[in-house]
């Protein structure tokens, strides 16, 4: 999809599954992320931030593909709204997790200052090697709709 979806088309995207994939917390990658985050190497992959990073890395779409689903590009300036992560079991360095998820809501809104925008919410889950839910993250994206 390249054109801005109508409200009806937007609603039909709710429930769309991500292709999904797997993510392995390789020690060198975890170490460099912690270095960038000014976090101690001893934290390993325990920070909830790793759930978001792994889930979005293995969701099966690039960000541009995700924007494209909603008729947008990077140049349209999609913005992060909120992020919520829940850890059921600490994520482990060296472990591989399955990633799956879906679009959970998509609504068009009009703000006095912001103009028209679409608020899209998606959820991604990380399952451990036994298929148990290890972590989940639910995030929202704001798509400005300057043409509407």
């Amino acid at each position: 999809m390249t054109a801005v979806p109508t409200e009806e088309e937007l609603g039909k995207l709710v429930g769309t599954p991500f292709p999904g994939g797997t993510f392995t917390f390789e020690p060198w990658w975890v170490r460099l992320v912690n270095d960038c985050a000014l976090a101690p190497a001893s934290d390993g992959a325990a920070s909830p931030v790793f759930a978001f990073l792994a889930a979005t890395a293995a969701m099966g779409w690039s960000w541009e593909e995700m924007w494209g689903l909603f008729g947008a590009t990077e140049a349209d300036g999609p913005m992060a709204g909120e992020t919520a992560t829940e850890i059921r079991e600490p994520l482990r360095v060296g472990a591989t997790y399955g990633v799956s998820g879906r679009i959970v809501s998509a609504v068009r809104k009009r703000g006095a200052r912001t103009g028209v925008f679409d608020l899209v919410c998606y959820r991604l889950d990380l399952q451990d090697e036994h298929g148990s839910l290890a972590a989940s993250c639910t995030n929202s994206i704001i798509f400005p709709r300057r043409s509407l």
Partner: protein
Amino acid sequence: MTAPGDELPAYEVEPVSAEKMKTMSALMRDANPIHFDPAAVRALGLGDRVVNQGPLNQAYIVSMLARWAGGAARVRALRLRFLGNVFAGDGLVAGGTVTAVRQDGAGRVADCDVWLRVSGGDPVLSGTATVLIGE
């Protein structure tokens, strides 16, 4: 003993590094040039300094909680709203307040309001966290 109303020790983050943003872009395979190309930031009218990645900003709040609670593995839930950008060279402060202490399936936990703000400036992240406390 942790109690509602307790202030979490503030964590002062060293000025944000453009070099670390470049590395993070590669680690995330994030092609958005606002994290490594000042010209792209200028083109958006956001100034001359590259923009820090959201996950790094989140990580500073986790570090604040981890220092207080005894490790990042104690942070079990985190809900944050993005309020603004952090630019290269910005100093930051992360902090929070305990709002409730309760027992859940994992043990005794503290619910907290948390925030990250540019030093002397506005909040760039705010939200809530749930942290295991060993009491």
